[in-house]
Each structure stands twice: as structure tokens, then as C-alpha cells.
């Protein structure tokens, strides 16, 4: 869960250190205090949400909205659940192997879905050129093109000249 969440934050463009998971047992009040204090300090150093990451409010909101949607999608959830199941079955909980599996099975999906959602949101505001999409999303030409083609195959967007826009029925 932690690994996946961190990768989602990365995909959004946020510093994954904004999310931390730690443990303290019921008997470990001092340790608990340490955890909370350290984490608060760490976030203070990182700074307000989005600011040090260079994300403007609008983009941030847009991408987080996309991430939110991603988290409820069956495709993502099934992949996530299956991964957790596989890890449990193999019994290999080493951080490296979990990270590797997440990288392999989930990250491409996360990236693609997020990009698609963001592009859709951008298009929803009116026709946009590929260049604008590239600069707004920070993704590569290939990635953006792949998403656009996918969307157009499913008949959700159309191209008019240099501009893309959602297909109105």
C-alpha cells in the first residue's frame, strides 16, 4: 500500500515524502511522539503542498482529482489487489521486491490512467494543441500521443487540425 501510494504521488508530481507510514506499539508512547514530531518537522522542511514541487494550484487539483478517480477504478483496484495477493502468496515482503513488482505491474497503469484523466480534463475546457498538452502534463510526446489515440479509438476525442477536443455527440 505504502509503495503504491508513493508511486501515485510521484505520478501526480508530489514529493512522496509527504506520505509516511510508521509503527509504534501501544507501549511505545515516546516512540510515537518521536514519529509525529519528526514527520511534522519533515513536512515543515518540504513546504506547503505543491509549492516546492512547482505545481500551480489548478494543475495540482486537476491531477489529484485524476488520482482520486484512478483509485476507484476497477482496473487499477484489481491490479492492486492481485499484486497484494501475489506478494502474500510468495511471502517475500522485502522492500526491494515489492518496489520492483509495483514498478512492473502498477506504475505503467498509474501513469497512463493519470495522464489520460488529465488530458481529458484539459480537453474538457476546450480544444487544445498537443504542444499545450505536453507542457501542461510534462509527459513525453509518445505518451501523450498514445493516450490521444486510445481516446480517439474509443470515440471520445476528435482532432480538428492541430487541436484536439472532446467528441460531442
Amino acid at each position, binding site marked *: 500500500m505504502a509503495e503504491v501510494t508513493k508511486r*501515485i504521488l510521484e505520478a501526480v508530481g508530489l514529493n512522496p515524502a509527504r506520505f509516511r*507510514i510508521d509503527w*509504534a506499539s*501501544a507501549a511505545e*508512547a515516546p516512540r*510515537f511522539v518521536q514519529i509525529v514530531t519528526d514527520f*511534522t*518537522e519533515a513536512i*515543515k522542511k518540504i513546504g506547503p503542498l505543491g509549492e516546492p514541487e512547482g505545481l500551480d494550484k489548478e494543475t495540482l487539483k486537476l491531477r489529484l*482529482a485524476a488520482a482520486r478517480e484512478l483509485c476507484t477504478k476497477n482496473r487499477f483496484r484489481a491490479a492492486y489487489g492481485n499484486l497484494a495477493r501475489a506478494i502474500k502468496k510468495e511471502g517475500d515482503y522485502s522492500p526491494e521486491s515489492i518496489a520492483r513488482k509495483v514498478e512492473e505491474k502498477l506504475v505503467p497503469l498509474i501513469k497512463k490512467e493519470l495522464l489520460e484523466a488529465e488530458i481529458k480534463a484539459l480537453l474538457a475546457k476546450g480544444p487544445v494543441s498537443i504542444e499545450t498538452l505536453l507542457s501542461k502534463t510534462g509527459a513525453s510526446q509518445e505518451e501523450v500521443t498514445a493516450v490521444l489515440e486510445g481516446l480517439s479509438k474509443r470515440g471520445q476525442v476528435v482532432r480538428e487540425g492541430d487541436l484536439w477536443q472532446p467528441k460531442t455527440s
Partner: protein
Amino acid sequence: MAFEPKILSFFCHWCCYAAADSAGVARYQYPPNNRVVRVMCTGRIDPRFIVEAFYVGADGVLVGG
């Protein structure tokens, strides 16, 4: 004015939430920036909760098991 981060914490009822209670009982002091959601276990935490927390503006999210 110094930046006071807004942190959302998810604490496990049996572990961190209990530790947080004991910290209170012992009168330890810590920064007041976090707000707590109690869950029965960290297993309950769905990535969407974390994303949602950032969506509504959290500067940081702490999960305590």
C-alpha cells in the same frame, strides 16, 4: 508567519492510537499540526484515502500502525 503544515494521520486502534493515548497520559508534548482518523488497523487504509487527503489540501499524511 512560519509555515504550519496541516497533517492528516490515520492511526491503528490497537497500536499507534493506543500509543497516542499513552503519550497523553504521560503528558508528552508534540506539535499540534496533525488531525487524527482512527481506524481499526492500517490494513483498512486504501490508497484512495491518502489521495483524498491530499486532494482536500493536506500537506502531509501519516499512517501509524
